[in-house]
């Protein structure tokens, strides 16, 4: 039986191996047939069912660039043998603006996690894991905050289904409940910690823990010193306000440098609150990007010191969670 099928295969192979003059003649192991190639594109006809990631490994030398192939070919994640697939060799739409509208990137904010949900801001571990698995299953690509900010500077194109994960305050629960899930799924995340809280009691992450998380590729950024509203309080004099801002904005970078051996580029506003005076101070202190909690996804032309983030609350169903993942704003720009 097996011998017979082998024989048939040989006959078929032998019988149909005739090449026309205009038939493409370059093949690569595993990836199928290269029909043609320019500086911008490789055009491929896969020899078997392929996924964007496997094609990216073959043609771009990096499976994590599969999104480029997926996005260029209409967001498809499976390619059948014999169809035309275009492999872009470099970014083709950096800002994500197209004739039909523009790309949006959601940034999610988590706070505390726990074995069970408690109140709005303590999210149950199971619900969190379910949300992360949802992102994976639905083909979202978790990108780092640095990649996101590079996108705002038009230095990099982001996947159509990008999402950024951020965790505010610096709870120890991140290490216990979020870390294992993120590790398993290969997701990156940014922690915004306020420095007075670091190492303060059982519920907070310590500098040592932050250091080892940073060493594993998690991004640690500033969330002020005391987590007070950064807007001027009523009755605060100019001098008092200036002194307070100096402590809230300049001390975290100094501490980060000393404790983690590296500086800080980003700031999450405590309570997401900001006004023009705060913006001016933050700019003055050299933060490259700063984050509110305005529930909206971001276009590439969002103002870098007023980037939107969507808070995920414990009472949200998976469906409500998914509503924060807007990826495209439709608008006729023809």
């Amino acid at each position: 039986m097996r011998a017979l099928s082998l024989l048939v295969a040989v006959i078929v192979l032998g019988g149909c191996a005739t090449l026309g003059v205009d038939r493409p003649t370059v093949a690569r192991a595993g990836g199928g047939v290269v029909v043609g190639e320019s500086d911008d594109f490789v055009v491929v006809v896969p020899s078997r069912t392929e996924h964007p990631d496997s094609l990216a490994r073959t043609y771009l030398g990096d499976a994590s660039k599969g999104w480029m192939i997926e996005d260029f070919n209409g967001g498809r994640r499976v390619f059948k043998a014999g169809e035309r697939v275009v492999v872009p060799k470099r970014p083709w739409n950096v800002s994500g603006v197209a004739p039909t509208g523009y790309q949006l990137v959601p940034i999610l904010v988590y706070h505390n996690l726990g074995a069970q949900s408690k109140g709005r801001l303590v999210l149950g571990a199971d619900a969190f894991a379910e949300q992360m698995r949802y992102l994976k299953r639905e083909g979202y690509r978790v990108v780092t905050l640095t990649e996101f900010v590079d996108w705002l500077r038009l230095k990099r194109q982001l996947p159509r289904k990008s999402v950024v994960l951020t965790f505010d305050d610096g709870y120890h629960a991140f290490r216990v409940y979020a870390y294992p899930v993120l590790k398993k799924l290969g997701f990156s995340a940014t922690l915004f910690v306020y420095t007075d809280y670091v190492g303060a009691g059982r519920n907070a992450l310590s500098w040592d823990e932050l250091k080892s998380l940073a060493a594993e590729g998690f991004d640690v950024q500033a969330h002020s010193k005391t987590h007070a509203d950064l807007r001027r309080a009523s009755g605060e004099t100019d001098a008092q306000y200036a002194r307070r801002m100096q402590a809230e904005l300049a001390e975290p970078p100094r501490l980060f440098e000393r404790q983690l051996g590296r500086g800080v580029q980003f700031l999450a506003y405590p309570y997401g609150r900001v006004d023009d005076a705060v913006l001016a101070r933050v700019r003055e202190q050299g933060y490259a990007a700063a984050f509110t909690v305005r529930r909206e996804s971001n276009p590439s032309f969002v103002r870098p010191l007023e980037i939107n983030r969507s808070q995920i609350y414990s009472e949200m169903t998976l469906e409500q969670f998914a509503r924060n993942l807007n990826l495209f704003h439709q608008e006729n720009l023809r």
Partner: protein
Amino acid sequence: MRLAAALGAALVVGGCMTVPTRPELLVPTRARAKALERDGQLRPALLEWKVARAIDPGDADARANEARLTARIEGLVAAKLGDARAALQRGAPLQARHALLSALALDPSNASAAELLRGIGDVEFATHTVRAGETLASLAERYYGDRTRAEVIWETNRLPPGKPLAVGAVLRIPEIRGVPFHALGRTPPAAAVAAVAPPRGAERAAAPPPDEPPEVNPLLADVRDAVERKEFASALADLDRFLADNPRDREGAELRKLALYRQGQSAYEDKKYDDSYRSLTLLAKLQPDYQDAAALLQQARRQVVDEHYLQGIRLFREERLPEAIAEWKVVLDIDPQNVNARRNIEQAERLLKALEQRKSR
């Protein structure tokens, strides 16, 4: 050695799943590129031509189309940036925003457009449901305390010119930087105001300092809108009147060039090559190096020549000789070096003469 291996692999692979030939792959790629361009999706169309060129680097048609579309996109991007700057100057951030987004849709890595767009930020606006008896001027009075701002509402909502407001229509009333904005209206009938978006002002402690209201020449603003609406003839007529009174006005002069350019471009797109050629020729007299006008003029010229030449041939075949000669003379007017047209005219004239001689006999 490696080549042999690759060839072997290709034989096997090619044999088993019948890889389409290059021409077979090019057909749908070309069709897609053309469909995208027809749909106004110029950047995706350009990418599709680039894919065609990757499939077959020797494909002259793909190469030519890529070059043509690249030039067209460059011209459009420059025009959109100009529109955006002008809109910003006359205090119309929503228009500027749209022009800049359109520029980015054509050229997604255009840093100037992205930067200007960032500068605009969010434009606040109210949503208004039109009630019986309301006019643009009455809405302007309600929201801005200034009836002359009616234009902005008209522009923002891209309303047809000169028609009364439709009762029940939902309009967006934008904030104008530097003009007090009564987002809820000054005398708000509660039902008329549906929502105010985005709900942001409340969170801001201090409003940004109001900018100086920009100087706007209303007539030029009208002309610009007419150009936007592709009403080029009326735009140019208004400009002529304006420039007769203000012969040194730079903005007016620039606007005339823009109008001619857009007229030429639009006519070209509509395949009205004669019209396109006429506008672009006028523009070339004003400024030969205006954006990509010279290239476009050449294209239009070629199309006009082809069109009249072929029309001549058609008429000749129908034995309408004098008319055929007239068509070829048009060709010679535009392109005096056109040997074929000259030869055809001579031949037709000989034939005509012979026919007349036979008739007179």
